[in-house]
């Protein structure tokens, strides 16, 4: 059985890694985009991002000062046995990780009304930023896999979840998704970004699938539809931090869920900013 203290330590390490590290496929995608850029100011901006990623990785320091809200995504093997207190240990580990980083102290004090207006200011401790509700999926085997995604504030202003009438054409839905993406990517301010889309039956399901899409997405794997959306937004010449250039979107990740008989599909889009995706995973074997 996994020891509770071990879970806390592993999760804390995961939060620091997610906040300060880009995976190899992500770095390779950035380097390729930088190499093909002809516009000097756009290339300069992308060089700064790559230097930043090196510095953050080396120093285990935050990639961005908006260190984001932790979103835990848990996958539980069909034969796995969760130790008692696992979710509590996960939350303790997230708090420890935010303090170890340290993350920006962003947790808002007070009751429901006070938190909305932010009238009682902020908690001084970085770890008092509570994680978002945990997403859970099942998987084969006896392991437990936790992915922590750190989601920043800017992209939330540009996210959108709404129904699209499909008119019995998936092309129509994808074209509408492109029309959503172009103005929101342009307004984001932190390009190039990564688009994630979830398509489902309800707003809750579509948002959850969008998160799953960015969790699973690899920057060196793009389906035809994902590449089509990436190319269409890049043709708008928005460029890194809006300076123009060839790369406004590095990649697009789409997760299509179950559908129901109806004339609409609910689509949830999140334009993840230039510092994202910020994610890291860890697995525990629960077989005795």
């Amino acid at each position: 059985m996994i020891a509770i203290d071990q879970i806390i330590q592993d999760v804390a390490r995961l939060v620091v890694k997610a906040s300060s590290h880009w995976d190899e496929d992500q770095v390779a995608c950035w380097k390729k985009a930088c190499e093909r850029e002809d516009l000097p100011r756009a290339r300069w901006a992308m060089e700064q991002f790559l230097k930043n990623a090196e510095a953050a990785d080396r120093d285990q320091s935050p990639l961005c000062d908006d260190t984001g809200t932790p979103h835990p995504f848990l996958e539980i093997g069909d034969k796995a046995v969760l130790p008692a207190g696992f979710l509590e240990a996960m939350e303790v580990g997230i708090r420890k990780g935010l303090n170890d980083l340290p993350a920006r102290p962003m947790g808002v004090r007070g009751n429901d009304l006070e938190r909305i207006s932010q009238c009682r200011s902020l908690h001084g401790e970085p770890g008092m930023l509570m994680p978002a509700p945990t997403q859970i999926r099942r998987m084969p085997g006896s392991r437990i896999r936790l992915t922590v995604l750190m989601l920043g504030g800017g992209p939330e202003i540009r996210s959108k979840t709404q129904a699209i009438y499909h008119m019995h054409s998936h092309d129509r839905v994808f074209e509408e998704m492109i029309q959503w993406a172009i103005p929101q990517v342009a307004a984001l301010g932190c390009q190039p970004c990564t688009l994630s889309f979830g398509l489902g039956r309800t707003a809750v399901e579509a948002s959850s699938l969008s998160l799953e899409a960015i969790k699973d997405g690899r920057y060196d794997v793009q389906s035809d539809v994902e590449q089509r959306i990436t190319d269409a937004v890049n043709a708008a010449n928005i460029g890194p931090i809006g300076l123009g250039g060839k790369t406004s979107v590095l990649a697009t990740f789409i997760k299509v869920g179950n559908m129901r008989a109806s004339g609409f599909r609910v689509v949830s889009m999140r334009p993840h900013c230039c510092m994202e995706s910020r994610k890291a995973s860890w697995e525990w074997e629960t077989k005795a």
Partner: protein
Amino acid sequence: MKKITIPFFDECELCAGDFVEVTGKIYCGRDAVLPHIVEMARSGTLAAAGVDMKGSLIFHTAVSCAGIAPTTTSKPEIEGSMVPLSEHGAKFHLGKGRISQETIEGLRKNGAYFLIVPPVSALLTAKMTSKRAVVHPEFGMEAFFEITVEDFPAIVAVAHGESIFAEQEGER
């Protein structure tokens, strides 16, 4: 690459699109504190608080244990501070994103510049050698800070009424 030392008194000519590196003591503030700084500038109480706007640079950022990086300048309280603070001597505003034509014109009239930098927190924080809250320390990370930086990378986005974003709009 042009080197800029703060405070800056027109030692060199700058144009939109120039790459620069900034060294010296600069000020930091964002939404919460900048309206107060504007008010203090108008009432003539900034000097008593130890703030000298002449030739200064205002960086639109919080200063927290997670570091520094530009927030979006077009937020009303931030962009709204740029022209008034330029009228009181601020030479540079450093942030992120586009600003309005009205602000561009206000900067031109006051001989001020808008610089932008990507939100590269790890890189920028490593170039910061000191920090202290000088006005409204009770605002925490959103107080008005004075920090010392060395070779801070930036690009001139707006100079003499010209914007690099306008050029891009034409291309799109």
